[in-house]
């Protein structure tokens, strides 16, 4: 989940913080101190996060585009300049542009807004933006909620008493609510000083930037792993299951079977990697065998592990999470009903790995796989009738196909209550019978008039002849075998 740090560089951020005795600080200095702490934490514990740094006042500027280079971010912090007034709406529009350009609208993002809680005055102030929310045209809509899923963290270089003296707190809460409610407002506790700003950023780090450690088990083999990005809790159905499901930190490998979100990184600290680690073994074998391993992440929540290589020969163990549920991939069937091959009477993969029990076929075929009859468009009906006639002209060679098509048409006509069609096709078949050339096989005439008669009977709607499951069978004639052989 990429992070955008949105730093307020308006003039009010230069307000001095009164400290007894020691040297004088600006609020900006406190903010920079806190952000430095955040970046240092990320550089060592959360280094795969992409972070961008934006500064804003009445205008906004992208100081550092999305990067994992935390030195660059810290450098940019050290050279911030001071500008005019706070205009949060414009800055949020900026965030929207920057994120969508880089990641599109499907990628969840975290926005860390650092401000002093003086939210501008007059036009462009947050108060003004919120007051005019409802009177806007399509082209000037407020940027929140963003099209991408957002976690908004507002860090105030101010304490809550100060914010509550004005309507600043109310406005910030409104802002958080507009963004979808996912996030938090952090304020400073006690006097504004280095220590309290550290505490505040520490709370943000604990809440949003703590690495996700887990243990991967495969029977008695196991390995400590760090998962990045952090798997987020998920609400499956807010009505039936209103509690979010959380990925358990004890991950069970279920077994091997035959792409998308998570990267599973064996605790990649600077420690020398000299002792054997199960993850590396698993990765190596998955890669060599071209297999994936199924993992259980919690009750009825599964995912898969596989080796993924980038173009630079670096490969790595990835974990993709499936949607929570007992049957996340229809072609695997219910996961709880996957059992060990050793129990099967015969190896379903074949002795030479030439077969596979997957994909599991669904109990019913989809419409496009079962030759359904649809006559909504006239062309559909015409095509079916023509197909019957084409085969009728090739009797008796096409007897089987002729009756198959005829019966398909008959079934549909009966279901749709389209008896007029049965009569019409019966007439057509009788006409075909009269048009048969002299050279025609005698069986053709018999079959045509038999089929026409059967259709006519069905078209009466009489239940005796109009049974849906009944099929018109070819008429048994002596020609079927004997005549055709004598002719030859």
């Amino acid at each position, binding site marked *: 989940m990429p992070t955008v740090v949105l730093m307020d560089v308006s003039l009010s951020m230069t307000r001095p913080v009164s400290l007894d005795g020691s040297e004088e600080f600006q609020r900006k200095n406190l903010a920079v101190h806190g952000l430095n702490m955040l970046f240092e934490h990320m550089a060592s514990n959360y280094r795969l996060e992409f972070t961008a740094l934006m500064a804003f006042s009445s205008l906004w500027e992208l100081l550092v585009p999305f990067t994992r280079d935390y030195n660059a971010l810290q450098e940019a912090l050290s050279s911030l300049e001071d500008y005019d007034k706070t205009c949060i709406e414009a800055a949020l529009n900026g965030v929207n542009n920057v994120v969508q350009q880089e*990641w599109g609208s499907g990628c969840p993002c975290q926005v860390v807004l650092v401000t002093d809680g003086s939210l501008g005055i007059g036009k462009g102030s947050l108060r003004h933006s919120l007051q005019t929310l409802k009177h806007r045209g399509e082209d000037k809509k407020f940027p929140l909620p963003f099209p991408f899923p957002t976690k908004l963290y507002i860090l105030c270089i101010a304490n809550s008493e100060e914010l509550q003296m004005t309507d600043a707190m109310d406005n910030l809460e409104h802002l958080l609510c507009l963004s979808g409610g996912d996030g938090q407002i952090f304020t400073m506790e006690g006097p504004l000083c280095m220590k309290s700003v550290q505490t505040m950023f520490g709370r943000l780090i604990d809440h949003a930037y703590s690495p996700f450690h887990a243990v991967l088990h*495969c029977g008695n083999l196991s390995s400590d792993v760090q998962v990045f990005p952090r798997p987020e809790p998920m609400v499956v159905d807010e009505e039936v299951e209103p509690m979010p499901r959380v990925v358990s930190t004890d991950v069970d490998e279920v077994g091997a079977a035959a792409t998308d979100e998570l990267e599973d990184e064996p605790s990649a600290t600077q420690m020398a990697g000299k002792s054997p680690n199960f993850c590396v*073994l698993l990765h190596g074998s998955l890669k060599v065998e071209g297999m994936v391993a199924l993992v259980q992440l919690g009750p009825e929540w599964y995912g898969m592990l596989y080796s993924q290589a980038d173009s630079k020969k670096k490969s790595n163990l990835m974990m993709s999470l499936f949607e929570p549920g007992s049957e996340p991939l*229809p072609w695997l069937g219910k996961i709880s009903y996957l059992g060990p091959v050793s129990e099967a009477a015969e190896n379903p993969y074949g002795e030479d790995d030439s077969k596979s029990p997957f994909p599991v076929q669904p109990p019913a075929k989809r419409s496009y796989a079962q030759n359904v009859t649809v006559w909504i468009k006239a062309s559909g009906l015409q095509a079916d*009738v023509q197909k019957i006639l084409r085969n009728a002209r090739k009797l008796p060679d096409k007897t089987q196909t002729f009756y198959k098509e005829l019966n398909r048409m008959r079934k549909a006509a009966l279901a*749709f*209550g389209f008896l007029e069609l049965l009569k019409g096709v019966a007439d057509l078949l009788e006409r075909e019978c009269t048009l048969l050339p002299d050279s025609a096989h005698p069986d053709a005439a018999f079959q045509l008039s038999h089929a026409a008669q059967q259709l006519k009977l069905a078209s009466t709607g009489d*239940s005796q002849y109009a049974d849906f499951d009944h099929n018109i069978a070819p008429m048994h004639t002596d020609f079927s075998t004997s005549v055709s052989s004598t002719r030859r």
Partner: protein
Amino acid sequence: MKMFSVAHKTVFVVDHCPYMAESSRQQVECDVLTKSRAQGVIPLAPVSKSLWTCAVECSMEYCRILYDVYPKDKLVNYIVSDSEFHILNSWRRGDQSTHELMSALAAVGPPNPCEDPECCSILHGLVAAVESLCKITELQHEKRTALMDTAERVANRGRIICLTNAKSDTHVRMLEDCIQETILDQNKLAAGSDRLMGIQQCELVLVHIYPQGEDTLVSDRPKKEISPLLTSEVHSVRAGRHLASKLNILVQQHFDLASTTITNIPMKPTLNVCEQEEQHANTSANYDVELLHHRDAHLEFFKSGDLHMAGTSTRENSFKETVTLKWCTPRTNNIELHYCTGAYRISPTDVNSRPSSCLTNFLLNGRSVLLEQPRKSGSKVISHMLSSHGGEIFLHVLNSNRSTLEDPPSISEGCGGRVTDYRITDFGEFMRENRLTPVAESSHDPSGKVPVERAKAQLERYTRYWPMIISQTTIFNMQAVVPLANLIVKETLTEEDVLTCQKTVYNLVDMERKNDPLPISTVGSRGKGPKRDEQYRIMWNELETLVKTHAGATDRHQRVLDCIIACRSKPPEEEERKKRGRKREDREDRAEKNGSKEMEDKSWQDSERLKGLLEKGEQDAEVIKDSPDSPEPLNKKPRLMVDEVQPPERAKGPVSLLSLWTNRITAANSRKHQEFVGRVSSVNNKFELYQHLKEENGMDVHENGKASR
């Protein structure tokens, strides 16, 4: 969509009154005469569908699309109404298919125009529909049972789609009032029943159908709330294609569907997508096919406002929106698939048209098609892929933006990344043995465990002793051990299995007698590595460790362990003789064997240490230099184990001249100096060095030197 939104239950109520037998007055020419045959033949008069036929085929089309996209738990109950109601199916999952419904519709047949119109009413069906909505579905039952005390979270909502020919707006209002009253009545009934559920929300969609060329007597009306329980909307539509496109729009609205048109599908010459039939199709025309699917497959377009760019077109006659995506010639390279973010079932709008069936057959035969977003700038962006799994076609969404997963660290940078002699091939074999396969839900296992738990139990058994690197194991590098190693992990053994295991053990004994070399790793030690008998000692220890982890399972497992213990212990005399014989051969050998009893003590420590290694992953640096093909590392001999003083038991036997002499000298010498602390407090003449380290690290350090290569 919530699990129990109104979309969970849909009741179709179709008017079967005599009026519905009237013609829609839309004529279909089904006798298309070819030019060569046209002479002298009178073409068949065009046929026309009745209002009933129009209603039935459009409702079937609605169900077809619904079942294609949601094969499970979006349920339809089909009711026909004339002088009474006829319920054609139930909410049961087994009843949910168009084939079932068509069969039931055929049994009902078309409306009888001679029936007395006064007796017939759509109301019978509507009342039955409300009653049916109160009936519990399988999913509702399952969830209520599963949730137990929070069963009230399972909601009961539903939709009634009524296809009828209404008389007037007043008539419509009367129908609405009647439904409202029935809901109240039924809810009272349901409150006192376990098998019924009160209706919390009902959505009435009334479709008034009238013949072509007539004026409608009923006006369209958008959704309005009749009561907190009931909303109602009215659509007034001419029969025929207008009705078809209305129901197509409704099914999209009701089930969150969206439309994608695949454009530029090359049909004949190059790709041979469509091989058979139609001989006249020798043109290379490009075709379009429209597909419906869940609208989340377009999420990226909707959100980014890219819809227009992606080629939305409002097509003539159909008043609906579709996103156009361009067919990309299939390639074998499927690297793009890594960032697939979702897969959605599809249903073709025009299922049996030739372009549609060509595309779907192509996909069902196992091919995939990448789809490109047409952009004015000319840059090519692949945004989707069509592919089938198990006979179902899915539209896959591919991430076309930058991915946050780019440039991940290599696994070799992490823990254990620099170890090079992992048993990769063996673990591959292990994975193949532990592969999964679907098990029929009906099959019953006596253990009462679901199959996936049995798979996990098997993993547990197979990994009780599983060294991860080649240099940590001897037995798994030996072909001779394979039969036993494969069998011992089984849950139960047959007599024959036990025999095979015993044979394996005897074979090993034989190897030892013949002094066959063992694949003990020699890495990290100077010289030739351990002596042959030391090698066998290590091998037996490891084998014993493996079998011990399973010995508790059954008596037969225990018998295999017993066999090993019995076979490996040898009379000390023989050991001694062997040792001495070899001593002469190798003068530099300063190490000596312990008696067999001590050896067993040590072997236990050894295996404990091996286990410790597995868990803690303590390892020496030399391993890094190895490739899996290099000679296996060897266990360095522990100097501590050198047997300088005879163990007490041995002293009881016949005393040799050497030991007599040694004992005397030792006794004399000991008087001249203070004894070492270690020797004084030794047990069996052994004293563990660096005990403080053990305390600090919590592991057995004194053998570390020998241990870990």
